[in-house]
């Protein structure tokens, strides 16, 4: 999943995300954050756009979360 500031979008859900970083979940180690910068994401690849609640995000302990990565979308 990719976290960033939503700068723009269009009808096909193409997205412009600024200051973005990818959160990689793993069942072996804590969440890895990979810095990306300014990204344009093609809408075909978007499943969910979630609004992050900053208060809730602070409560989450990303170092100790263990989880399988999300499955790919299968049509």
């Amino acid at each position, binding site marked *: 999943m990719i976290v960033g500031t939503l700068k723009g979008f269009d009808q096909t859900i193409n997205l412009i995300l600024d200051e973005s970083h990818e959160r990689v979940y793993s069942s072996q180690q804590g969440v890895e954050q990979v810095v990306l910068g300014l990204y344009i994401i093609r809408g075909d690849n978007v499943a*969910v756009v979630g*609004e992050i609640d900053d208060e809730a995000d602070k409560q989450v302990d990303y170092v100790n979360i263990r989880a399988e990565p999300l499955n790919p979308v299968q049509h």
Partner: protein
Amino acid sequence: MLFYSFFKSLVGKDVVVELKNDLSVCGTLHSVDQFLNIKLTEISVTDPDKYPHMLSVKNCFIRGSVVRYVQLPADECDTQLLQDAARKEAVQNKKR
């Protein structure tokens, strides 16, 4: 257009959306559009231990193309009415 109208009538109700990547999200239906994109508020994931990815998200937008199922309580839907309306629409589309 039929199911777009159907979902519009469900705005405000609690539903569970199962996605094609197996994630299930429970929330209140806020809005829907012509592509059956769904906006949910006050979401909670059905299995938060398996899917902690959405812990900091309260509201979300779900692209229509990734929805597998929208689960709703039986009393929110008149199945007979929906079936008849869908049949009529199918006939209309076939004629066009």
